[in-house]
């Protein structure tokens, strides 16, 4: 820990982005998980960002419109807003550092890395249909209205786009999955799916394994 906190940037007309670490050297733009998985992973991601920064990697973590610190309401967001936001965040990274960022996309974040970026590390990429199923089932389980699952009110347009969204196959992709998950992957790590935990959690072995993969990917 170097004692310095992250820098706060804005992008795309007032959206919120944290930046960690140096402006020289490799730069990573993080596309966080979507919906409840974002909250569950946030503590681990912030901790991993700090660790990467200490090892000389610049890390940029935008909150997408309608999520996290964004002032926009989620129910006003359409799919294109998120693509545009990822593109705008990338432009800020290029302006600030002069470097093309690699993308660290986690879970549903992997639905948003193409076509604006080419090089991605995807952790446990998932489909939009799967995220929607989770939202619907969580709503049923908690007795809330399936149209407003777990407090997440999505526009009809966003639901429609998510239903058909899959991680794009083209590009320079390193897919990482957990060793307990036997779907296709380039690398596997021993770890826990923190995006499945009911409460936000940090698991040191999972975080260390992920950081190690990210470092060897970011500094080939």
């Amino acid at each position, binding site marked *: 820990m170097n004692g310095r906190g992250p820098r706060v940037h804005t992008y795309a007309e007032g959206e919120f982005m944290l930046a960690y670490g140096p402006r020289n050297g490799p730069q990573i733009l993080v596309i966080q998980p979507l919906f409840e998985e974002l909250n569950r992973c946030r503590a681990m991601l912030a901790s991993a960002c700090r660790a990467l920064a200490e090892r000389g990697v610049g890390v940029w973590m935008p909150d997408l419109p309608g999520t996290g610190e964004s002032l926009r309401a989620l129910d006003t967001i359409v799919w294109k807003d998120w693509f545009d936001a990822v593109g705008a965040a990338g432009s800020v990274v290029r302006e600030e550092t002069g470097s093309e960022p690699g993308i660290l996309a986690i879970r549903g974040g992997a639905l948003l890395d193409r076509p604006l970026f080419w090089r991605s590390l995807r952790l446990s990429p998932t*489909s939009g249909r799967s995220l929607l199923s989770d939202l*619907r*089932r969580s709503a049923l*389980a908690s007795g809330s209205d399936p149209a407003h699952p777990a407090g997440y009110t999505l526009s009809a347009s966003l639901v429609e786009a998510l239903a058909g969204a899959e991680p794009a196959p083209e590009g320079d992709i390193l897919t990482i999955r957990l060793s307990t*998950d*036997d779907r296709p992957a380039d690398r596997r790590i021993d770890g826990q799916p923190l995006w499945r935990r009911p409460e936000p959690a940090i698991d040191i072995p999972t975080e260390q394994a992920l950081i190690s993969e990210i470092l060897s990917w970011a500094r080939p």
Partner: protein
Amino acid sequence: MTIDDQLRAILRDVLGLSADRAATIDAGTPLFGAMPELDSMAVAGLLTEIEDRLHILIEDDEVGGEMLETFGSLSAFVKGKRGE
């Protein structure tokens, strides 16, 4: 991995079970109502992981106490869905 091994791995991941505990799960192991980690919210994650990793679709009206009563009944449901 066999279907049962994959299901054990999914239960381990979703419920945060230790590898040792997951390995003791067999056909007679009671699940919903007996395993404290498997509350109704965890069931939501469990079903989605099963769909994703085992390439099946589970309708809401197929989900019930019977299907989740034991590991054996869950396994039989999944295998039936896959036509095995």
